[in-house]
């Protein structure tokens, strides 16, 4: 039953702590992975369970001792969780320096959360030339050394195996995104659970569950058509936000969300040296606000995807104070105007309790799309 698997996704998505306790009880070591990208395959291959740490919807108190108010709430709440023991039991956190705010998270982490080791991952922005690939590899080696200190062991054969597991997971997630576009009856909230649960389950388990879900979904007749939209942003898991999408009959036919499909677009190629393959994967990644590309192909990607999937409009979900996305937004707006594609902007953050503004914006947008 589709509903049974959806329930499992929901459970995992809403109880990361329980998931972590489960892995710890099994004697496994957990390594947290901060936004936006980390070498999860490597962490996995060295015997750890990587778990996504994208913060939580919560009030901020202790993080204010470290961060000024004008830093994004994702990073603020990751630190808050860390200080308050929400990640207790994890062996380490891998934080990449892909945006300025993330750079400061790592620096603060060292002093704010001393019992969970900070492991920096430094990615290059000129990631495609040979020297960029070499630097990515050096960054992985730096992570590797730290993981070895925690009892991990690097073995190229194990990494090749992990890469296969991750590539398979990527494939099923892409497939899920595609199939969900044809099933308006799956709500935005349910879609969010499918993606979010991936951060809190081993990829092996998640792949199996997604496959099970897709097999059942395939047998199910598509529900009545709704208003197709493409959602873009960093994080769109707020229950109130998804409730509003559902209430207004909006169907997410594709996403350009960092915590969702952006994670799964690119596979590591098959190569003799798996570490090189992982670096090449990063070189091949694109269409993201924290990955430099002067041509900003992401902007056109959104327009093209919206057209290809028959979306009526684009909703940019802006995480407040996220400057990489704020810069891209202007370009996305222009491109949508040029393509005659309606666009709405809603601002969210992890402390938000009142979604009236979001509701009003999306209601107006719905009216515009259905007029």
């Amino acid at each position, binding site marked *: 039953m589709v509903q049974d698997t959806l329930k499992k996704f929901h459970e995992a998505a809403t109880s990361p702590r329980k998931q972590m306790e489960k892995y710890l009880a099994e004697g496994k070591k957990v390594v947290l992975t901060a936004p936006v990208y980390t070498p999860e395959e490597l962490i996995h291959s060295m015997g750890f369970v990587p778990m996504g740490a994208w913060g939580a919807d919560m009030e901020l108190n202790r993080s204010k001792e470290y961060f*000024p108010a004008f830093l994004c709430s994702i990073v603020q709440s990751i630190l808050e969780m860390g200080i308050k023991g929400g990640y207790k039991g994890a062996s380490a956190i891998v934080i990449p320096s892909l945006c300025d705010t993330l750079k400061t998270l790592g620096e603060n982490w060292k002093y704010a959360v001393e019992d969970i080791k900070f492991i920096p991952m430094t990615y*290059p922005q000129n990631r495609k030339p040979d020297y960029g690939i070499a630097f990515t590899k050096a*960054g992985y080696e730096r992570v590797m050394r730290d993981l070895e200190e925690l009892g991990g062991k690097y073995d190229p054969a194990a990494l090749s195996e992990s890469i296969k597991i991750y590539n398979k997971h990527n494939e099923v997630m892409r497939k899920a995104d595609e199939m969900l576009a044809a099933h308006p009856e799956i709500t935005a909230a349910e879609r969010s659970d499918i993606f979010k649960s991936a951060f809190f389950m081993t990829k092996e388990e998640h792949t199996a569950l997604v496959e099970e879900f897709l097999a059942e979904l395939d047998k199910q007749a598509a529900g009545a058509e709704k208003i197709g939209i493409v959602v873009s942003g960093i994080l769109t898991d707020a229950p109130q936000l998804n409730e509003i999408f559902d209430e207004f009959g909006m169907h997410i036919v594709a996403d350009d969300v960092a915590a969702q499909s952006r994670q799964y677009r690119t596979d590591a190629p098959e190569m003799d040296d798996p570490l090189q393959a992982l670096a090449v994967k990063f070189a091949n990644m694109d269409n993201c606000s924290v990955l*430099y590309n002067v041509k900003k192909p992401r902007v056109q990607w959104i327009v093209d995807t919206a057209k290809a999937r028959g979306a009526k409009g684009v909703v940019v979900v802006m995480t407040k104070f996220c400057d990489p996305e704020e810069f891209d937004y202007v370009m996305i707006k222009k491109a949508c105007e040029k393509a005659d594609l309606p666009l709405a902007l809603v601002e969210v953050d992890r402390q938000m309790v009142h979604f009236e503004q979001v509701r009003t914006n999306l209601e107006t947008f719905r009216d515009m799309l259905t007029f």
Partner: protein
Amino acid sequence: MAEEVKKPEEVKKPRKPLDPNSAKYKLGKIASDAFATAIEAKKQGKPVAWVSSNFPVEIPETLGLATAYPENQAAGIAARGAGERMCEVAEADGYSNDICAYARISLAYAKLKECPEQDVAMPDVLLCCNNICNCMIKWYENLSQELGIPMIMLDIPFNPDYEVSDAQVAYVTGQFWDAVHQLEDLFGLKWDDDKFQQVTGFSCRTSRAWLEATAQAKYIPSPFNGFDLLNHMAVMVTARGKEEAGEAMETLLKEYKQNHEKGESTFRAEEKHRVMFEGIACWPYLRATSRGLKDRGINMVTTIYADAFGFDYNSFDEMIRAYCSVPNAINLEKSRDKRIKLCKDNHVEGLLVHTNRSCKLWSGFMAEMSRQIGKECNIPVTSFDGDQADPRNFSEAQYDTRVQGLFEIMESNKESKEA
């Protein structure tokens, strides 16, 4: 905000013309020539580059490429009171007011192509280096798209470790030569090793003089007002690879030394207390921020800028390492230790921190770092909210209260010391 922006000492008093042999005259001329030269080059059909402040100047300087520095331009625009107007132009296009105000001003200029408060030559290429922030990447990407011109990206990632790794040196070196070759191809320019040697010589000479001049604050009283540094820094940003910059900085050093010998200072009040100022200046409120200190006899004797432009190196590798070690590219421990050294060398009694709304990176671990500095140096730390260029994010009343608080602690520390 229509504040007239002049250096605090200059306000409203008719002044006798500056001595052309003075450092102030020479540095002022270099700073204003920097804009004029690029405008002139543009008129003659020569290519102009817009350059990030910590991009290796050795590249455009050696290739003979005319340059303009958007951050420097934005600071000038903000100091002359047009920050808000320009920010609003960018905001009307959809740029959030959370974005760094320098970027907003620059993107507004790219659209308007004029701003009487500080015009620059329009660029043919963008030279971006993110060793001070990743915001720079996004800003320049958008400039490149809006203006339809190429961008050269020199990526110097934030270094989470204390030392610069060989892997990072190799990565940056690869990009350095790639940038050179791209510029050669774009504009038919030719790299010349002899010229490069000459430029590096000038750059090191300017940097050495700067480091030594700013180090004169070791004397009590300091022979200069630290607000001078905020102004002279423009030359370090835009012209450190030029011969005349080295010469002007040496003049500055000489003057500071003479001031010390004669018991004089450009700080025109009795120096009762000495603080370190942390962060970029609040350009729209330069006068208010300076006066708040001066009226209480507080001299801002040092800032991280004293160390920031120390591009003094002996080899190509050392040059690359220097660019990998600029203030915003280094980890908390290294940032902290540099500041502790400045505080100790310059007998600092208090730390005044500008929590700069524009700069997420600079402000993001400042709280923890300044706690550690305060503890190590046994000095009080106070912060105030502001912005380097958007006047809407500063409150004079809050500034005044915070500075007064700092003053009182320093007073009582002094009293107990004397007792």
